[in-house]
Each structure stands twice: as C-alpha cells, then as structure tokens.
C-alpha cells in the first residue's frame, strides 16, 4: 500500500493553479510525475499522490519544479474560472477509475504523437542533409567540368590560330617560290658554261624517266628538287640479308599466356606417335629419331626415290612394327613390292592399306586411288585380269578424271576380250 501524500497546499488565480507538495525526504525525478488533462499523479515509491483535477488543464504548458524537497506545480487552466477545490470531491470510485484510465490513454497517445512528430522531423533533417551534400558534390563536379571546358576552348582557339598561320605561310611560300623560280630561270639563261646548266640538262634527262612533272607548284619544285638531287646519294647497291626466325610450330602469333597450352598439345602429339611397346630389345640400339614412324616413312620414301627398294621395304617394316595402323606405310610398301615384283605381297599390302583407309572420305581419296591402282597392277601382272579390272574401275569411280587410269582400264578390257576370244 502506498503512502498517500496529503499535505499539499494550493492556491489559484483565474488562469493558474499553484500546487506545492512536500516530499518528506523522498527523491523526486521528472519521471515520477504523471500529468494529463484532468489527472495528476506523483509516484515516488512508497509515496503516492494523486489528484483528479476539478477542471481540465493545459498539461503541455504546465510546469513542475522540484526543489528543496518540494514539488511546485504551475498548472495552466484551460478555462479561466475559479475552482471550488483542487480535486473533484464527490467522485465515485468508477468515475475516478475511468478518469484515470482516460488520462493514461491520453498520455499514451500524446507520447505516440510526439514520437511520430520527432520521426518526421528527423527524416526531414536527413533529407535536407542529403540534398545539401548532393549540391556540394554537384558544384564540385561542375567546377571540374568548367575547367575542362575552358581548356578545350583555349586549345581550340590555339588550333584555329595555328591553322590560319599555316594557310598564310603556304600562301607566302607559293609566292616566294614563284619569285625564286623566275630568278633561277633568269640566272640559268644567262650562263651557258656554268655547272648549274650542265646539271640541269643532266637532271632533266633523268627526271623524265623518273617522274611526271606536276603542275603549278610542282613544276617549280622540280627545279629546286633537281638542284638538291645532286646532293642526295645514289640508291644503295642491292643486297640481301638472310634471316633466321625463332622456331615456332604453330602458324599463329606467339602469346605468353598460351605457351603452356601449346607445349602440352605438342607433348601429347609426340606421345601419340611414339611407340607404346618399347620393350622390344632391339629397339634399344636405335637412335631416338629412328623410333619415330614418321621419320622412318620419310626415310623409306627417300630410298624408294633413289631406287633402293629393299632398303625402303626395311624402313617401312620397322615403321610398321612401331605403329601398325598407319595406312600410308602399307601403301608405300606395296609400291616397293611392285617394283621388286613381289606381287602377292603387293596385293596384301594394298588390301591392308584399303582396309585402314575406311571410312572412304574425300581426304583419303588420293591414297585410296593409289591403293587400287597398285593392287590392280599387281593383279594384271599375275594375269588375273578380271580382278585387276575391278580394281581399276574402283579407282576410276573415286577419281573419274584420271586419264592414265582410264587408258590402263581400256587396255585391260581389250586384253580380257582378246583372251576370251
């Protein structure tokens, strides 16, 4: 139960009510005072003072002063009238309760309104601050832009001035040149045995083969040009400098960022061509390049070209042991066998080559034509003309424009018809 403070004293004027409340030692803070239009409460635990006021007051303007253990209230009356008493005496409990609750509600609402008002002002302030900074930045930017504009204009003006100077200079030069030209002609006419005359004739001779004389300003320049020309050295004697390039496999330009990729690619290619079965003991004797089927193929071709067919066959054999899936090796070995008249072997090799040259695409056309022709030749030499003709016709189907194959096919047909009769 709170202790009621009842020793209050009050006096009033028409517009004000002055209330003083002794606190009996309790410490009062602004938070302990609760005031609304009709209700006043001071709560300092355990003390309590409340008053339901006789008439409404203007609580926003009313003040409370805490000093010397007393609280002095200065309340502004809403309606200037004299109050009979400070509080409503004969109010029943319910009314009092209602009034209290209303008071509290009103206070809450007021508080809310105040808060909102505060928020609104805060926002406005923020907006204002933002606008102010934006304006400042805008001003700064504009200043820089203006400086740049000024530069630009200055420079443009200078340029115009310079251009005009150029034009004037040109005009002046052309007039000057005309005068010089007249002078020169006058001078050269006057002297016959002078060196200048001789060189003029000489130079005129060469200049005709060199340039077409240009009109106007050009012609006067020809004279001064010719005079200068004898000071220019003769054209250099032609020579060639041979150049070596840093080797590069790829036709594209060199880029540092791609070097790693390119190295990897090359490495993989080399691996693919290298022998997988390196456990053949004889291969240990061979040099690195001799294990490379491509190199061996080239060697074989060279041997064939030189007429050394047995050596060529050897080379192809070794290459095939390293990599038995290269059709060109079989093809070239077939050609060697043909020359060596190992006809059955030639047929075998051409057949193997044809097998490997599937699928039949335009890329391996020429290889397939060769394979058919070689096999056909071998058959014919074995006098198996029908099989030979079959091969020749297959070759013709791939390459119909080849005259040699056509001629040979015709010959075989005649032969067949001849034997049949």
């Amino acid at each position, binding site marked *: 139960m709170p202790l009621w403070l009842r020793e209050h004293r009050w006096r009033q004027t028409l517009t004000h009510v002055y209330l003083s409340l002794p606190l009996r030692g309790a410490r009062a803070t602004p938070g302990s005072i609760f005031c609304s239009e009709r209700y006043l409460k001071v709560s300092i635990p355990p003390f309590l003072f409340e008053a339901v006021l006789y008439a409404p007051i203007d609580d926003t303007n009313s003040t409370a002063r805490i000093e010397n253990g007393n609280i002095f209230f200065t309340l502004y009356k809403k309606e200037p009238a004299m109050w009979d008493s400070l509080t409503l005496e004969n109010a029943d409990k319910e009314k009092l309760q209602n009034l209290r609750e209303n008071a509290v509600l009103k206070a809450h609402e007021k508080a809310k309104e105040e808060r909102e008002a505060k928020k609104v002002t805060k926002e406005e302030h923020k907006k204002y601050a933002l606008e102010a900074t934006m304006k400042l930045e805008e001003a700064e930017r504009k200043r*820089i832009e203006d400086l740049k504009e000024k530069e630009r204009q200055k420079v443009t003006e200078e340029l115009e001035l310079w251009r005009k100077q150029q034009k004037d200079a040109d005009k002046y030069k052309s007039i000057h040149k005309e005068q010089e030209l007249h002078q020169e002609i006058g001078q050269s006419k006057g002297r016959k045995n002078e060196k200048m005359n001789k060189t003029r004739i000489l130079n005129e001779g060469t200049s005709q083969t060199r*340039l077409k004389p240009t009109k106007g300003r050009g012609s006067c320049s020809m004279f001064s040009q010719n005079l200068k020309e004898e000071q220019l050295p003769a054209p*250099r004697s032609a020579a060639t400098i041979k150049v070596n390039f840093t080797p590069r496999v790829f036709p594209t330009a060199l880029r540092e960022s791609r070097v790693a990729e390119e190295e990897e690619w090359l490495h993989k290619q080399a691996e693919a061509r290298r022998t997988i079965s390196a456990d053949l003991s004889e291969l240990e004797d061979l040099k690195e390049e001799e294990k490379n089927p491509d190199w061996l193929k080239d060697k074989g071709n060279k041997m064939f070209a030189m007429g050394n067919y047995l050596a060529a066959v050897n080379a192809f054999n070794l290459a095939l042991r390293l990599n038995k899936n290269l059709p060109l090796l079989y093809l070239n070995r077939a050609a060697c066998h043909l020359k060596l008249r190992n006809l059955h072997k030639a047929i075998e090799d051409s057949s193997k080559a044809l097998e490997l040259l599937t699928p039949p695409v335009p890329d391996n056309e020429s290889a397939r034509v060769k394979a058919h022709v070689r096999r056909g030749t071998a058959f014919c030499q074995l006098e198996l003309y029908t099989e030979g003709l079959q091969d020749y016709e297959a070759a013709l189907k791939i390459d119909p424009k080849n005259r040699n194959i056509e001629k040979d096919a015709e010959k075989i047909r005649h032969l067949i018809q001849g034997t049949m009769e």
Partner: protein
Amino acid sequence: MSAAPALERPQVVSHAQQSLSYTVFDCKWVPRSARLLCLGSAARGTGVVQLYELRGARLELLREIEKPKPIKCGTFGATSLQQRYLATGDFDGNLHIWNLEAPEIPVYSVKGHKEIINSIDGVGGLGIGEGAPEIVTGSRDGTVKVWDPRQKDTPVANMEPVQGESKRDCWTVAFGNAYNQEERVVCAGYDNGDIKLFDLKTMSLRWETNIKNGVCSVEFDRKDINMNKLVATSLEGKFHVFDMRTQHPTKGFASVSEKAQKSTIWQVRHLPQNRDIFMTSGGSGSLHLWKYEYPAQRSKKDSEGSEMGVAGSVSLLQNVTLSTQPISSLDWSPDKKGLCVCGAFDQTVRVLIVTKLNKI
C-alpha cells in the same frame, strides 16, 4: 581526390570525330597542314583514301579516292615537303607512291611482296634526316624490303628467310639511326616475338631478340639521330623500351618493360616535339600517354669490362578510353604539339588534343 592537382596532368581532349563508312587501317597527318588522310578498306573489297581538313571542331571531307585493292598502311616519310607524295602498301603486296593532286596513276609502283604489306615506313624526306629517301615494307610473306623511289622494280635491300625456313609474318617495321648519309638501320617485329635490327650500311643483322609475344609495333624515338630509344609493343598488353645507345656483345640492349593493359597494344607513337613522351593505343580502345625517364647513368661496365646499357623507367601520365574497339592507328601532328589523330575499328577517326605537354 582533389581537383586541382588532377588538372595539372596532361589531359586528352576529344576535339573532333568522324564516322566512316569503311574500315580504317591507317591515318596520317599531311605534313605542314591541317589536313589528314584516312586509308582503309571499303566493304566491297576496294581501297579507300580520304582527305579531310580540320575546320573548327569538324572534319570536312576534301577528297575521296578509290583504289582496286584495300590499303593497309601509308607514310609520308620519304617524300620532300614540296611534293608530299604518299607511299601506301596494300592487301595484295603492292607498294605505290601517289601524288594526291593527280591520284589516278601512281608515281611509283611495284608488286613488292606476295602477301599483304602489314607495315610501311619512310625516311629521308620531309627535311628530316639525311641520305637517300627510302621506304621499307614488312609483309606477311616474312620478308622486309627497302625501296628507293628512284630505282624501279628491285628493292635496295631484302631481308628474307633462309632457304627452307618456314616464314613468320612481319608485323611492323621502322627506320632509325639516319643521322648521316651512310648510316641507316631498319627494325622489324614479327608475330613470333622476334625483333631484328638490320644495319643497312653493312647489310647485316646487327641485333635480334625475342620478347615472348607477337610484336605489334616498333618505333625509334627519332629517325634522324644516333639511335637513342626503341619502343616495341606486343600482344598481351606489354611493351618494352630499349636503350639503344649501348650495345653489349652478348646481352644486346638494355630494356624496361611495362604491362599496360590486358589487351594488345596496337601502336606506339612518339611525340615529334619531345622524344621522351609516347602514346600507346590498345585493343580495348584506350590510349595511354607515357614518359620515359633516363637513369642516372646510362651505361655501366659489367664484370668483363664491356659496356652495358642501363634502362630507365616509364611512368604513366594519362590514360583515356575512347572506344570499345581497338584503336589501330595513331599519328601525332608534326606541326602542332599535342594534336593527334587516331583511327579505330569502330569505323571512327578521332582528332584529339593533349594539353599541358609543355609543362612536362
């Protein structure tokens, strides 16, 4: 970042631009004038030469000339100031020299190469340098040939691969060291990263190196002095600056390299009025302006007592992105400091002004 110091750096100001209806491969200022040339390839497979004049903030088309084959590169380097003939290399390997006043028939013409001429340079003209006027062309057929306009049909020097050697594309050529009548040097860059320096006086290979990326562009800082610096740009956004004053017998020339951007650096061009400033153009449509600073001592002795060069350092002055497509050609005006033209693969040619170059 405060604004005041930023504007003390050179600014690249876009002054004028022109949209073209063809692919422009090269753009060049006509010496002693405010006119520029654009060379390229039209959609129908013919070559185009357009002459523009800079008037105010616009480019006005003065002349348009059509040629049977697309044109890849051109130079004024080998003609006199009065004649101002243009030497061009085209996609077919032909070298022509044109008089722009009468462009129907070339003044000089030769089928110099079997494949496209990628790059051309001229020396001995325009009052710069001494000695005979010469033109060098580098082609996809792997050869570099030097021509004298007074000699028909045969080159005066031919740098070709050894018999049986597979060829590499030559992407760029440049003249240098033309400080008197006899001395001259040609530098060539290839797609496999080779850079080769040929001495024309002794007709020999003077130096070669490989910079590990295809070489897109080489240029000496000046053609007409004792060779001082060489800049070589390459794929992968790198460029190298070689100090050419001191050649070590085995190590060659000292160099410093920078990685400027992720994409190819298509061109390098030195400012004609200041040989330590150069601009590089990139595959991402950007331009970078660089300054080279010399080291305290340009050469030092190595352990065996032979002279070795010391490379300096390169600092970036400014960079700007103008386009989304590569800027393939770049040329400074020899008459107005800071004025330059660049052509990009978005079929636009832009005239730019670089300010504050006096303050560097």
